[in-house]
């Protein structure tokens, strides 16, 4: 989009909706100032016009960083990557990260998909890290044959 990577926000720019509306646009390319009641009533707006754009999340990440909150900023950068992923798939990916839901290769595949299909390297890194820890802590999906239940007795 039109966003220049050279914009450097300071905490004084917050709230962006008040101080820098010029920087805010919907993922559909409308400026935030276009989100008026007239536009709602005339049917010009769709639910997609009320979503956050990845560029906006990167601006908020800058603000979080400027306010001394690097973890919050990292969260916003992952979120910016996730805006491209459909709702149902986001939930499916979350479920795949639950304990013992995925095997090592399945998590590796998920990370690759994030990186290649969605250009989401930060999210992919989080999944790869999870895969390594899950392997060490016995939290990968268990092979189905190894189930010993009391009923075998």
């Amino acid at each position, binding site marked *: 989009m039109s966003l220049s990577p050279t914009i450097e926000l300071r*905490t004084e720019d*917050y*709230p*962006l*909706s*008040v101080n820098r*509306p010029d920087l*805010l646009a*919907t993922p559909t390319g409308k400026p*935030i100032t276009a*989100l008026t*009641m007239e536009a*709602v*009533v005339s049917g010009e*707006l*769709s*639910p997609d*016009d*009320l*979503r*956050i*754009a990845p560029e*906006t*999340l990167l*601006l*908020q990440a800058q*603000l*979080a960083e400027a*306010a*001394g*909150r690097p*973890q*919050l*900023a*990292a*969260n*916003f950068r*992952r*979120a*910016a*990557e*996730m*805006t491209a992923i459909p*709702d149902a798939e*986001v*939930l499916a*990916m*979350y479920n795949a*990260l*639950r*304990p013992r839901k995925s095997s090592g290769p399945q998590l590796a595949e998920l990370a690759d998909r994030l990186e290649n299909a969605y250009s989401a390297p930060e*999210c992919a890194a*989080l*999944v790869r*890290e*999870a895969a390594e*820890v*899950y392997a060490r*802590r016995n*939290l990968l999906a268990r092979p189905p044959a190894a189930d010993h239940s009391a009923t075998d007795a």
Partner: protein
Amino acid sequence: MRGDADAMTTTQPRRSRRTEILENRPVNLDGFVEEWPEKGLVAMDSDYDPAPSVRVENGRIVELDGTTRDQFDFMDTFIADHAIDVASAERANAIPSEEIARMLIDTHVSRNEVLAVTRGLTPAKILDVVELMNVVEIMQGMQKMRARRTPANQGHSTSARDNPIQVAADAAEGAMRGFAELETTLGVVRYAPLVAIALQVGAQVGRGGVLTQCALEEATELELGMRGITAYAETISVYGTEPVFVDGDDTPWSKAFLASAYASRGIKMRFTSGTGSEVQMGNAEGKSMLYLEIRCILMAKGAGVQGLQNGSISCIGVPGAVPGGIRAVAAENLVASMVDLECASGNDQSFSHSAMRRTARLMPQLLPGTDFVCSGYSGVPNADNMFAGSNFDTEDYDDWNTIQRDLQVDGGLRHVREAEILQVRNKAARALQALFSHLDLPPITDEEVEAATYADSSNDYPLRDVLADLKGAQAVMDRGITGLDLVRGLEATGFHDVAENLLAVLRQRVSGDLLQTSAVLTAELTPLSAINDPNDYQGPGTGYRLQGERWEQLKKLRHVTSATDPETEVG
């Protein structure tokens, strides 16, 4: 003495009249247990908690609180790799705990100077610091370390019958009384879409910009948020030991992923944790409740979530039953604030049979102020509270307002005259009636609107056709109704101001401003967070002061005798 004992052997021992009176006091209906530190049934101050230590090699933490990296469980790993600032860790942990504890209350040390140290501390070090602090010092620390300068409060609006009209009317009243956030949940989960809509409409009638939430399992909660029917989420639970976390079917990585998912849809979110949950589930690994809660807090910090609801929450009966438990609960709120997270500080679950004890339990949050003093004050009678009851409910409104006035502290609420309350309750019910009709949802009768205007509890409303409501709720999901449809419907039915308020809330999702730490929307529909309203407390005369127009508001009570004409009341 011996003679007395012998004399008693033939009859029931005689009890003192005073003992009988004390025995019948409400406090003796509460449960108290002895500590059992080996099993983690201890609030803080346990010999079984680890000693602080940290070692960094090649930019990585290789030892944390006595455990080497090869022995890390997943909490240690996540905290070491995401929560703790590696660059300052060794330096920060080398500072004597007494010195850090003193920094927390020293008015010559700014909040930012404290954060420069706390960002590098390990869980055991943080515990070591707060163990040095008595409850007054903990409050002093909270006064400085709370992220947002202006304190606020959160309310519950639920119904024992899941009656949407009741939820809307009580949300409107609660919003007008001052809650900055309103939360609902359900008895019958399938009712959720209708009740979430009712909460949103009621809130925007009562005071534009109030944020709403519907506590549900993750998928539905996220979906209602993504559709713009709710504005934030909070019931994302995290736990302090690996086995309990896994029992909850999550890991720090799955929760961190979920946190980003919410942000990617522009939805404000905070995690939930609290002392006592691990020992209640029998898996505290012999650690104190507060130590495990500090691990939760640092996990939340590492995930990059902006805030945390803590203060034991649904496990409050556990720390509440052991010595020093309420001090530990105050300390866990402080720790969330001292690692720069928004803190919605409990006081949200039925806690005691004793009104004195309920009030005392509130003081460590009310007096210094927190981001949300209650993470659910019941804006309905407790019998209608579907979170199983709160520490305070609608019957306590006047007591709360009086305590604010007595102590000149801002607990986020205010007295509102009955006429104004009747007006917003009625308007909320009418707005919902019009909206349901516009969206072809189950009708709301004039009789129900009338009931909502004057009601106290769900018993005061005509019964709904539950099957029709559940069909309507399903239709909301099937037809893909979104927040935009609600705005359109409210505008089309003549509730222009309510429609504008809701549109303003939805517009904030596009700006992302509410994603920043401790963000709320003011009555002017402006985002207020720890960035543009940072807590600058640094001793007497600084920080948030209850004064000016707000203090004039809080001087008002139901009955105050006029000084100019003592035969009348003001207000």
